[in-house]
């Protein structure tokens, strides 16, 4: 567990902590300060711990967040409160019990403790856990030893633990996962402070009072609380909401960790702490290093202290047997130790014993430093006898207490981000979305809302966040850790699951759904990554795969009914549709149509308004001058040069095969794929009247000649003239609209010497039909017109599969040819 009020390391003012209401008593705080600040040897301090009464003053009790926040204030059923403590304090590791709820949290794995934690810290910690790490759930197992025995035991245990060495995980790096060499040395404290205060650490741990959050509108509930006095708060049942939530302490981290070990712990806490109380916050290596740098401050240690110190084998062996004898092994995994030493089973414990782990421990009992409330709650379980029946709802809330889901999420009027912490929960870019846009969602009724696979996905490390606009991150948990939530949530929320074809028994057309969402949804929601400018919200792309259809129906019908104070407006005020023109205003049918549209969103066109916004960004619209785009096109190949004209007639030239490839009318092209998509998809003509030009180049000769594309030149109006060579002939090819009905092509040929061996391929097709005296139309609907003189010289030539209109050219030094293209393609 981490802690932030770590007085010694960050040099924060101690006074800052004193005024905190409901913090531990000022006396214990001062005592702690004394301990941490004085340089007296630890042994001397532990000597002072001779009476129980003194202990209560000097040390804190174990900190179990669910109990501190709710149990202490009578907000948990007795059964939950006591069970929670027994589990979190791992009682059952020694005092066997089969009761599900009492199963132990267990301590961290110690297999790698020898290269993770600092030797000196470990020594001090073992000598008095609750003083060195206030709030720890580890008991003092040496409490009944004499001072000398204790010192000897610590030497032996530390010697044994120094042998627990385990290499750190090696992180996978590739083109999409940057991992800098020795990244743990490259943390940045300022950035670490930002991460710490924005991504969720302070949902459980103490924020730095000096950290300035960006200005955010206070939460509505907090605003209300500010206005009320205590009595009114109690009357309104807001006592829990008004209470400052205590922070899970993280102890003296700089004395405990090295930069590397803390960075690696943050990156994947489950390696050392499989109990999931500290979850992974999906950190990148760099973020973990930044946070570690922030938490450790300036006095960073890169060594554990074991490095140059080889303890005697005898001492190690003694430590290993003590590790078992003192029952350390019951809670902590270590390498080479399998034995455990059980104590009396839980059911046989005497709740009224004069001497116990609770009170005045003797012999081999552990000392827990419990406070009165904790003792009372745990005793109620020991005295409890028959275990009452537990519901699915109990199972869910119990696991949420253990994992402190309540630190962020409200469910059933319990928990949620505590008062004074909400300022750390921000919306990316400070867009005002209200509390919904910055605080984790309420989980009341979530079993009804989310489909089982969607609920499971929430915990998965690979799932991308559904609310990317929140700075807070949903931590990851293994399926095992959240099993009670996955298996019991639906039952707890009394879900009567229906399939969508049952809920929407009369399927409606997706295109009407598209029109529906265009009316309202697009104002606040992106659709498969696209949105209106400035819109921030949950993407509706996979919503039908995530939410229950019945819930969807009810939520759309009346959002406030299912979600208190939501900003989602209803589009069916008083049960009547805003769009009476669609589906005769039938509300059920309209919601059904929206479902149908969203279900097929991957394939459906975007909502019209979003499509229009997208076009404004990426569609090339020639207004005053032509627009050129070099790209890939299906019809013009991978060397395509597309040219769009204000007149609304466009063409694409294939510069590889040196031919005019395709022409079309209306809208030109969308450049997004060419400009910004990694996989470089071919650009598709947006307009209509697409006409493919005959395959093959514009000229032919009997002698072998090669085409060489040479680029293009833009004139003062931006019209390109394509340049190429055919053998020694220099050709300039200018293609432009002929009014708005077709294209006019001017071929200018320059030759060094007179050349009579070239034929113009004026047209080609499976079948050419003469249209007047100087035009032919092919089977593709393309008509080519040439000058009368060329027409007179031209002949039709039939080959195996096509007819070509060939015109022999007599080129002296210079020649200009004009061709007109016209087409009208029936749709």
């Amino acid at each position: 567990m981490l802690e932030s009020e770590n007085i010694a390391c960050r040099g924060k003012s101690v006074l800052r902590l004193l005024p905190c209401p409901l913090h531990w008593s000022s006396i214990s705080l001062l005592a702690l300060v004394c301990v941490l600040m004085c340089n007296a040897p630890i042994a001397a301090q532990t000597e002072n711990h001779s009476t129980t009464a003194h202990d209560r003053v000097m040390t804190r009790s174990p900190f179990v967040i669910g109990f501190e926040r709710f149990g202490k204030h009578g907000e948990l059923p007795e059964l939950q409160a006591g069970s929670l403590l027994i589990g979190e304090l791992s009682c059952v590791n020694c005092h066997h019990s089969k009761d599900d709820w009492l199963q132990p949290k267990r301590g961290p794995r110690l297999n790698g403790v020898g290269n993770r934690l600092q030797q000196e810290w470990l020594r001090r910690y073992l000598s008095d856990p609750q003083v060195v790490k206030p709030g720890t759930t580890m008991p003092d197992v040496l409490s009944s030893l004499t001072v000398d025995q204790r010192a000897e035991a610590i030497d032996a245990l530390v010697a044994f633990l120094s042998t627990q060495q385990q290499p750190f995980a090696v992180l996978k790096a590739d083109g999409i996962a940057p991992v800098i060499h020795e990244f743990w040395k490259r943390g940045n404290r300022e950035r670490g402070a930002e991460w710490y205060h924005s991504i969720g650490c302070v949902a459980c741990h103490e924020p730095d009072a000096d950290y300035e959050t960006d200005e955010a509108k206070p939460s509505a509930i907090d605003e209300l609380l500010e206005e009320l006095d205590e009595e009114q708060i109690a009357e309104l049942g807001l006592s829990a909401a008004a209470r400052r939530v205590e922070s899970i302490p993280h102890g003296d981290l700089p004395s405990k960790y090295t930069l590397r070990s803390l960075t690696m712990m943050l990156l994947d806490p489950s390696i050392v702490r499989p109990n999931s109380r500290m979850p992974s916050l999906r950190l990148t290596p760099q973020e973990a290093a930044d946070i570690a740098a922030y938490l450790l401050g300036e006095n960073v240690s890169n060594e554990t202290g074991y490095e140059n110190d080889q303890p005697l084998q005898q001492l190690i062996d003694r430590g290993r047997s003590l590790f078992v004898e003192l029952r350390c092994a019951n809670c902590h995994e270590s390498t080479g130790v399998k034995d455990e030493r059980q104590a009396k089973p839980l059911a046989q414990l005497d709740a009224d014993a004069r001497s116990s782990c609770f009170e005045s421990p003797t012999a081999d009992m552990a000392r827990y430093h419990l406070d009165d409330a904790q003792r009372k709650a745990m005793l109620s379980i020991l005295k409890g006898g028959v275990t009452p029946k537990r519901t699915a709802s109990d199972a869910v809330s119990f696991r949420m207490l253990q994992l402190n889901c309540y630190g962020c999420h409200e469910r059933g009027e319990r928990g949620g981000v505590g008062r004074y912490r909400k300022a750390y929960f921000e919306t990316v870019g400070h867009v005002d979305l209200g509390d919904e846009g910055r605080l984790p969602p309420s989980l009341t009724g979530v079993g009804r809302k989310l489909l089982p696979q969607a609920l499971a996905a929430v915990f998965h490390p690979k799932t991308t966040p559904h609310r990317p606009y929140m700075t807070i991150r949903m931590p990851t948990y293994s399926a095992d850790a959240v099993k009670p939530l996955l298996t019991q949530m639906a039952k707890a929320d009394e879900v009567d699951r229906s399939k969508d074809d049952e809920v929407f028994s009369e399927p409606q057309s997706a295109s009407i759904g598209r029109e529906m969402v265009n009316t309202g949804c697009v104002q606040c929601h992106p659709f498969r990554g696209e949105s209106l400018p400035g819109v921030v919200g949950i993407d509706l792309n996979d919503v039908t795969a995530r939410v229950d259809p019945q819930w969807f129906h009810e939520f759309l019908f009346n959002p406030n009914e299912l979600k208190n104070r939501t900003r989602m407006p209803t589009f069916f005020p008083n049960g009547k549709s805003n769009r009476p023109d669609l589906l005769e205003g039938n509300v059920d049918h309209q919601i059904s149509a929206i479902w149908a549209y969203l279900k097929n969103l991957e394939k459906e066109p975007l909502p019209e308004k979003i499509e229009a916004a997208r076009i404004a960004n990426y569609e090339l619209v020639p207004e005053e001058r032509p627009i050129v785009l070099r790209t890939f096109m299906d019809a013009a190949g991978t060397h395509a040069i597309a040219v769009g004209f204000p007149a609304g007639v466009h063409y694409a030239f294939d510069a590889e095969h040196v031919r005019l490839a395709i022409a079309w009318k209306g809208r030109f092209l969308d450049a997004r794929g060419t400009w910004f998509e990694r996989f470089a998809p071919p650009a598709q003509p947006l307009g209509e009247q697409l006409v493919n030009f005959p395959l093959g180049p514009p000229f032919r000769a009997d002698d072998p000649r090669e085409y060489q594309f040479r680029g293009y030149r833009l004139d003062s109006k931006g019209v390109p003239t394509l340049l190429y060579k055919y053998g020694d002939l220099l050709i300039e090819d200018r293609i432009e609209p002929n009014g708005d009905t077709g294209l006019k092509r001017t071929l200018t040929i320059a030759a060094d010497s007179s050349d009579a061996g070239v034929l113009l391929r004026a047209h080609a097709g499976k079948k050419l039909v003469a249209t007047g005296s100087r035009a032919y139309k092919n089977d593709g609907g393309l008509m080519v017109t040439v000058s009368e003189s060329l027409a007179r010289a031209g002949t039709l030539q039939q080959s195996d599969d096509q007819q070509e209109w060939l015109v022999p050219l007599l080129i002296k030094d210079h020649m200009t040819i004009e061709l007109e293209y016209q087409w009208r393609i029936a749709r």
Partner: protein
Amino acid sequence: MENRSLITTILILLPCVTVMGADENDYYRLISVSTASAATESRSKNWKPAPDGLALEISGMDFLDDGRLAVAIRKGDVWILDGVYDDPPSNVTYNKFATALHEPLGLLQLDGDLYTTQRSELTRLRDLDGDDVADEYLTVAKGWGVTGHYHEYAYGPKLDGDGDLWITLNIGLGLKGPELKRALPNAALGYRQGRWRGWGMKVTSTGELVPVCAGMRSPAGLGANADGDMFYTDQQGNWVATNSLHHMRPGVFFHHAEALASMNEPGSTIHDVEKVPGGLPLPQALKEFKQLRPPAVWFPYKKMGQSATDIMLDESDGKFGPFAGQLFVGEFTQAGINRVFLEKVDGEYQGACFPFRLGLASAVLRMVQGADGSMFIGLTNRGWSSLGDASYGLQRLVWTGQTPLEIKEMRAQPDGFELLFTLPVDPKTAGDVTSYRMTSYTYLYHSTYGSDEIQVETPTITAAEVSEDRLRVRLRVDGLRELFVHELVAAGVRGESGQALLHPEAYYTLNRIPTGQTR
């Protein structure tokens, strides 16, 4: 929506915050000319430029004779920027010079015209009437295969000492559908690639496209050294064990076997490869594959970056600090820049690489040196991932005038190495063999993605002799191995004022152990 000036301000401030350990910023200061966060992740299908317009995803850069900076951007424009030397750069102007280029990945100014390589051709951009807008887009060379696969990037051009232009062509990665129809028919060894994919090409002053060398995977950077010899960088992946720097010369094969698809094309300089060995340690693979040549420098993965990009020669004669004449190599994923020292042993280049600078705002794709010696750095990370807070932009790296204590050169010797430092070292620590740690390793030559360091050993440093001027240390080493990377960490060496090395690491690719004195 975010406002550009705010973003720029934040990014200007970022390098000022303390980074733990030695601080590169004390010696080389970053100035953000223009950087912008993208609204979406660099790998998102819906990636969008920042809403303020110009997507300055710099893919090519060069200076015009009047001192203005021309930049090519990935969406296909060339812009001319003025005011880039201002500090702070508050009055930069942008003028669109050319447009409609197909993913240009280089820019070179030559005799007043700009040259760029598009996916399908090398293009010369000419402004005929002096209005700072290109009028002619002339095809200088084309003819390499473009099947339509996205990975078939084309880079360059860069100019060598003979006045020839060089370009490099990415290999395609698994062609599909219509792409296969554009692959070379009857390609050698049955590989399916477009013509000259994975080759280094030269374009002579008469416009002839000449294939020179082959076996490239993703040759995103090329550049000449001070002698005018042309180099390229490759990126870890299939057949490529880790990032590397290679000397391009005729008939040489580097890594990626599928480049052999063009072996039988007219003009090919590689002949008679019948079988490509796979799964062998590099020294053995070199014996079995006679056209295969080791890189001049390996960049060990993670330690020296994850994706090498541009090559920039420091021609500033000291205006950019103590590394005049050396090469700088861009690093994409880690948003940084590395440094390379090269020497010739038995007529072949080999040498060492060193960390130089991290902490750029995004992936480094292009670098060019300004007239004042400062380095202009073009950034873009779209499609992959990088460190840094921006998706694209332009930053400038300025030497502060403070000389960092660095290993400037690492030279191979018959019995070890000679180190040259940028500043005099403390003879006690520098003369102590325990101040150094050396390991050596090689890689597997195989078709899978990247290679671990294999056959790792720890050569013994038997002596460290400090020269009289305290600038050089001669390391005598037992256990040198040819064709192995020799990694040196000189963590214990101190400068005269007790300072540690800014970067204690050096990685020497010891292809050949010199037999005589090399200097």
